[in-house]
């Protein structure tokens, strides 16, 4: 059994940033375990730019951004176990992992979860029809093109306008594929506005809002999909069906934080984020286990993700889990889908991140407790695709009284 100060599960951007920060904040032995043979998680396949703009002022590609952290991790002599899959955790902070050398047991003072997320499949949307080849999640198609030099197909339809789907629309166009359109069930695109412009508009790729795919046809390879406009209840409107011939369907239906390891030891999960419920230290419901990156919440910008991951790394190194007697809950109110952290155990300057329900203009973000407004901030516009983060001062008396906090959007 190896003993370490901080063990980190997942060597994506969150795991790397957390590891560097843990080391900078006093942890002596830091180890990262990752199931892939490379570092950087999903970044090596994200060869488009836009990474690191906020953090460094330079727009980098995914591999470039990953390299920046890989170099820092190397400089800080962080131990990395690649091709190592964590099989289980226990509440005493022991990790069981497997690699080609055998079963590994690692006892840690703190554990950081940074397992990332996985993509939703066809069966999340329950799309009926045949079950041919040629249906890929957008990220899998991205891996085939960018990492393996393999083309998934030629005539492409994309379902879902999440960022990965938008980026793939452009990527496939670059490679000479015929990108026939992006179909989105919502009345607005779910990816970042800049991606809609740079990936679809600039290449005349049609975006079908308020549409969905109602049928998949092709007994062996995909032959066509049927798209239809939807009504207010998201049911297809009869008469609006249109059959589009294609050989490839990419699914960009959203991401699910990967938390099987967490749920197996009873870590409490937020039903909306899909990630662990955390306090202001990004500590989960099991003391000493912290969470960051896309397994905590699905981020839209890596800069933001790294910044939060660094806090997790610091807290894990310092084992920050100071608790007052009372724990208060932070609840999403009107117009807000979720807020992180979900619980508070100490007062002071707290970093919040949240997503709103729908795109709106000129709103006021408010933190309320016991009928009193304790924080407010004006926002010119809000969009579910853009995560909102801010710091707010939470007074000590609030925790003493034990009133829950509500975060909401007002006009």
């Amino acid at each position, binding site marked *: 059994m190896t003993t370490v100060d901080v063990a980190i599960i997942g060597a994506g951007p969150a795991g790397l940033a957390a590891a560097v920060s843990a080391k900078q904040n006093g942890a002596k032995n830091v180890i990262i375990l990752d*199931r892939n043979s490379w570092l950087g998680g999903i970044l090596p396949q994200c060869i488009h730019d836009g990474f690191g703009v906020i953090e460094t002022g330079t727009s980098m590609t995914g591999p470039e951004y990953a390299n920046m952290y890989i170099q820092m991790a190397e400089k800080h002599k962080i131990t990395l176990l690649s*091709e190592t*899959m964590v*099989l289980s955790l226990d509440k005493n902070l022991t990790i*069981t992992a*497997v*690699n*080609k*050398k*055998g*079963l590994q047991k690692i006892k840690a003072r703190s554990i950081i979860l940074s397992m990332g997320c*996985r*993509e939703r*499949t*066809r*069966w*999340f949307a*329950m799309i*009926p*029809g*045949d*079950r*041919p*080849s*040629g249906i890929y*999640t957008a*990220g*899998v198609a991205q*891996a*085939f*093109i960018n*990492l*393996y*030099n*393999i*083309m*998934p*197909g*030629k005539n492409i339809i994309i379902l879902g306008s999440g960022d990965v789907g938008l980026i793939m629309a452009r990527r496939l166009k670059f*490679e000479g594929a015929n990108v026939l359109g992006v179909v989105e069930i919502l009345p607005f695109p779910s990816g970042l506005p800049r991606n809609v412009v740079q990936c679809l508009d600039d290449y005349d790729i049609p975006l079908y809002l308020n549409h969905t795919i*109602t049928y998949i046809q092709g*007994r*062996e*390879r995909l032959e066509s999909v049927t798209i239809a406009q939807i009504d207010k209840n998201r049911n297809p409107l009869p008469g609006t069906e249109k059959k589009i011939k294609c*050989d490839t369907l990419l699914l960009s239906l959203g991401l699910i934080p990967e938390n099987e390891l967490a749920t197996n030891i009873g870590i409490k999960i937020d039903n909306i984020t899909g990630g662990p419920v955390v306090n202001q230290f990004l500590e989960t419901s099991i003391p000493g286990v912290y969470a960051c990156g896309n397994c905590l919440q699905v981020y839209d910008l890596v800069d933001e993700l790294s910044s939060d991951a660094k806090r997790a790394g610091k807290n894990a190194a310092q084992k920050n889990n100071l608790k007052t007697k009372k724990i208060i809950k932070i609840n999403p109110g009107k117009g807000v889908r979720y807020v992180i952290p979900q619980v508070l155990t100490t007062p002071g300057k707290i970093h919040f991140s949240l997503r709103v329900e729908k795109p709106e203009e000129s709103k006021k973000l408010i933190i309320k407790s016991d009928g009193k407004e304790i924080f407010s901030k004006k926002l010119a516009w809000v969009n579910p695709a853009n995560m909102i983060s801010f710091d707010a001062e939470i007074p000590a008396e609030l925790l003493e009284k034990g009133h829950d906090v509500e975060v909401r959007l007002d006009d």
Partner: protein
Amino acid sequence: MKNYHVAIVGGGVIGSAIAWELAHYKLDVIVFEKGSDVASATSKANSGVIHSGINSKPGSLKAFFCVQGNQMFNSLSKEFGIPVKWIGKYVIAKNENETKELENLKRVGEKNKVPGLKIINGSKISEKNVPCTQALWVPTAGIISPYEFTIALAENAAENNIKFCLETKVTGLKKQQDHFLIKTNKDEYQSDILINAAGLNCREIVSMVEEPDFNVYPCRGEYLVLDKKYGNLVKSMIYPVPVKELGVLGVHITPTTEGNILLGPSAEYIDDSEDKITTKSMMTTLLKEAKEIIPKLPDRAVINAYSGIRCKLESPEHGGLADYRIQESKQTPGLINLLGIESPGLTAAPAIAKHVTEIVSKNIEIKNNTNYKKPKPRMKRFAEMNSQQQSDLIKKDARYGRIVCRCEQVTEAEVINALNNPLGAHTLSSVKYRCRAGMGRCQGGFCTQHIVRLLEENYDVNINDIKLKSPDSYLFSGRTHEVKK
């Protein structure tokens, strides 16, 4: 042209069980399967139930082979190392009329000599999530993985020199004097005996040599697969009372040996026996009907949906259940037909295979194959082992230390073993059905790229030839950029 003693059309559970049975004798046997692997149609898309025999008419072939087959599964399970779980089933009644139906089922079962049947008060059944007034307990109903069983039969047959021709469709058949001339999409073959185990295509095969005196009515059944997370909702199979007019058993809840739960199947007569689609309306109906059985069933639990097609000999207008027809053709001696093998076909398969072997032995002299090699019992999956066993295995072969499928924790060594199958099946599905890579909640999101890599590294496969599941189900359209070697 080489003359085979026996040619079998169809590599489903029936064709594979017959091939395996015949492998015990000194015979040249060839099997034609139009799919890219055995168990590529109805034999893979069913509930995986070893039926007890309570649903078949006393005196019928179905009842006979079902009860006989059921008793063979314990020893088959040991021989192949494939788990059979005798989890039993409850047929549940929600009102007085249905309770009467339970008594009828019990009577039929007893006539068929099904042991241990009991009607239990709804409050006393062992399933806490299943409300009902009364239930018939059927202890001799079990579960098995239907594709794993079929694959095991076929692979051991192949190891005993039975020739399996995959992606080979029989396109023509002629009886010439004392032998059959068999045309396929690939080659021509010759055999003394022809066994028609073509399932839904059994009529097409008959019609190549004689006028069929029957029709096939394909009846589609859709299924939903639940995430293993919800595998504890029930421990046994839960059936409603059968839907008489449709001649099917109704939407039921079936645990699988691997820990998932299946909902289904629906029953819908269709014209085209290849039309294995899933439909929005049936997916909704299945969830609704399953919720009537298990009110606690969560909404977002489904990780996959598929359908299988029953081979029925009764028209939907006539309804009800026809019996199997298993006999040598009077018009075409040497043609052994297996017609209308629907549920309980999986259960009946080993008993049917013995019976067909007897028919073969009446036509040609058969001698024991003294070189018969017993199957190597299936190794425990890596994910099923304890830490010590896992450790020991990795020391022997480091490839067991590399997880390829994260959801089901399948290792690189297991994927390579699957690819090394004696049938030469190399599709993603053939890997999936052998070692479960790709069967979990991410449905291949993580492992597909690794399996493709292993195929390229170990088999020198051109990426354009990698298929999902069937002869034309190509995965890719070439390299993004061709690299000249």
